[in-house]
């Protein structure tokens, strides 16, 4: 009788139950250890009990590794997580680490966390103090914008979202007007609404703007302006006119070669020197110009990639129809080129959104900046973890949604060629 026969179809009836039992035992041990702080194998010598789950799991996985067993779930399991010894070990380590890390995370985020109260003293548990976020939520969203006027920001974003929402359901012809409204009318209407100063609205200076709404405002305007500038720069770089070509190349490479933070420094301290004495351009506008030009250079390179990827025949066909340079680009070349580089465009826009927190260098505070301010408040010291986890979550949701949307768009617009 061969006790240690290689697992095969012949001994499937004995090996699989034993193997599954050992694997579940090892997981159970780690699970109980992690969640209830009780060592199931505590009666064994400490070294052995420490490694026992690993050994048990490893033997168990070895026993159930039966090729072509004919049992479908078993085959799927083996193929995906248990194809050889090394893979089995990796699987065990991954599962152990996941099981081990769940309880402390769960404790910190929910079980031991504090949700009720109005001050730091209400945070008695060991977990996160979400009271901090609750109390400061208004500031995180609107910055130092006066409480009584916040309806204006809300209204602006409400109009934006409802127009975008409605435009999904109207006919193609109407959609064009919606888009025109969003691109050419709404930005200026919205900014007027938020900044005020006329129509009986109280003036709110841009230094008071902040929080997540500022992130959105800066991102939206930078996206709006950097796109056309980027396209023009890309066309300029591919132009046959040497002066335009080299100026475009120089401009693009200049911005791409320096970090955004130095560009923002430049807009803050160096740019005012270039203006006539006494002229003052609002900080927010300077920052917007800096971010727009910076991202436009990246956008230009992305668009250039699309232009280069188009077959020459497209240009020749357009020219043979008698189209001029601008008509050819607007009607034939750009629609195809832009479609080719949707992932690149999305990545640039994502980078833009992720870059907005950098405006702290000029003293503007969006979400991350407001958290920096709140955590240094004497009444709320030691809340950095909660603040940055919250900000990280918010940004992650925005960026992840954007990248998902671009992937969908890419699929929807892709045409077989």
């Amino acid at each position, binding site marked *: 009788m061969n006790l240690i026969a290689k697992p095969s179809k012949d001994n499937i009836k004995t090996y699989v139950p034993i193997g599954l039992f050992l694997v579940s035992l090892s997981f159970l041990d780690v699970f109980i250890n992690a969640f209830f702080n009780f060592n199931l194998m505590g009666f064994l010598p400490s070294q052995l009990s420490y490694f026992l789950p690993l050994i048990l799991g490893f033997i168990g996985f070895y026993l159930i590794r039966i090729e072509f067993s004919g049992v479908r779930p078993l085959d799927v399991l083996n193929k995906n997580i248990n194809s050889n010894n090394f893979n089995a070990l990796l699987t065990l380590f991954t599962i152990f680490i996941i099981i081990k890390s769940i309880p402390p995370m769960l404790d910190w985020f929910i079980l031991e966390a504090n949700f009720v109260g109005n001050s730091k003293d209400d945070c008695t548990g060991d977990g996160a103090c979400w009271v901090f976020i609750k109390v400061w939520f208004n500031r995180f969203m609107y910055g130092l914008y006066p409480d009584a006027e916040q309806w204006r920001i809300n209204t602006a974003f409400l109009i934006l979202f409802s127009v975008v929402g409605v435009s999904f359901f109207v006919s193609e012809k109407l959609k064009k007007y919606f888009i025109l409204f969003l691109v050419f009318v709404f930005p200026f209407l919205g900014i007027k609404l938020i900044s005020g100063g006329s129509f009986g609205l109280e003036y709110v200076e841009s230094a008071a703007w902040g929080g997540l709404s500022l992130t959105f405002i800066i991102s939206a305007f930078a996206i709006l302006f950097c796109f056309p500038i980027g396209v023009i720069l890309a066309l300029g770089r591919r132009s046959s*006119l040497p*002066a335009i070509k080299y100026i475009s190349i120089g401009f693009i490479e200049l911005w791409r070669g320096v970090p955004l*933070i*130095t560009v923002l420094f430049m807009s803050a301290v*160096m740019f005012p020197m270039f203006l006539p004495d006494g002229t003052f351009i609002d900080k927010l506008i300077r920052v917007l110009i800096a971010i727009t030009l910076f991202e436009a250079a990246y956008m230009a390179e992305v668009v250039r990639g699309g232009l280069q990827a188009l077959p020459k025949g497209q240009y020749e066909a357009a020219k043979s129809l008698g189209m001029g340079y601008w008509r050819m680009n607007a009607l034939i070349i750009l629609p195809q080129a832009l479609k080719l580089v949707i992932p690149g465009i999305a990545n640039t826009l994502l980078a833009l959104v*992720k870059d907005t927190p950098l405006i702290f260098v000029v003293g503007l505070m969006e979400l*991350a900046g407001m958290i920096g301010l709140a955590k240094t408040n004497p009444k709320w010291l030691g809340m950095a973890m909660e603040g940055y986890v919250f900000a990280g979550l918010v*940004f992650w949701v925005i960026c992840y949604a954007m990248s998902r949307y671009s992937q969908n768009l890419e699929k929807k617009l892709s045409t077989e060629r």
Partner: protein
Amino acid sequence: MILKKFNIENKKARDLIPQAITVLALLSVIIYFATNAQINMGNRGISFGFGFLNQEASFDITFSMIEYDGSHSYGRAFLVGLLNTILVSAIGIFFATIMGVIVGISRLSDNYLIAKVAEWYVEIFRNIPLILQIFFWYFAALRALPLPENGISFYDISFLTIKGWYVPKFIWTNFNIFLLSVIAAFIAIYFINSYATKQREQFGKQIPTTIISLTTLILIPLITFLFLGVSLTFEYPVLKQLSPTVFTYAGGVSIIPELIALALALSMYTATFIAENVRAGILGVGKGQKEAAASIGLNKNQILKLVVMPQALRIIIPPTTNQYLNLTKNSSLAAAIAYPDIVLVFAGTALMQTGRAIEIISITMLTYLTLSISISIFMNWYNKKMAIKEK
């Protein structure tokens, strides 16, 4: 004839007009800015020039790789900042590459769990702004470390505390000889490799170059230890009491928390992008290549080493250098947590003290620009060298 000439001239004229307008517009903007700058500087009583670089800086820098204190010049302070930028970039690039390759390969693993974990790692860390990650590590994670008196000890030679990571200091004698021996070993390896390549291409002989190279690399420096008087001792950090409640470590090298946070965030963030490049590169090698290699009898390791990797690297390297460049530029975020890099030291402190905005910002931007352009020139050369030579 006349008609043809007329047409050509017409086209020339047509091309000239937009170019002339662009150049003129650019020139007028530059002249406008320059005159304004001149007037402004005149009003404030400063004149354009780089003489200030020799003046005494009279500010301290918390972390410096070369000798520096307040009595040194602004030029020296610039150098300290530049070296700190290069240091954190080099550390970041090193770890980002290792992590990126591991995660990239894991994403293609046939183990479902490993592939999923790697995928989520990429999705999470790529979609959170880098600056937030730096803040998180610096203000939240590293601040949770213990005080020096009960620092986390690694076998009593290295201590991790809230004030930084204390590691043993290397004290070399005859370091130059050791360095020369390492260089000699690399030269020897180069010759061994070229000899092996020749043997392989001419006679089809396989020489185990990896093992020979490794032994050379260990043997030659070892000889210097045994016979040429090179030695290495360590100075361990020791806990010292400054006052009844304040402790610190004396001796050893202290790695400041700013550097740790920055290097951690930079490498974890950039690793996600490198991982995607690695994945795309390996996927980009056609299946037929692997099958062809298998059909002529190469084993799994040989397929990876001789067929897949050389082709994948050609796809991986260009975007990855781009990521290295991005990492270097992103290291400027150091200014947010007061790690003394070039932006904080030079464009921050030095600018505040001297008020020379135009000179200092230009120098800082030019430094980064030089770095970027030299790397991209090198990359273009490398790409040309690596490109498939069609016969």
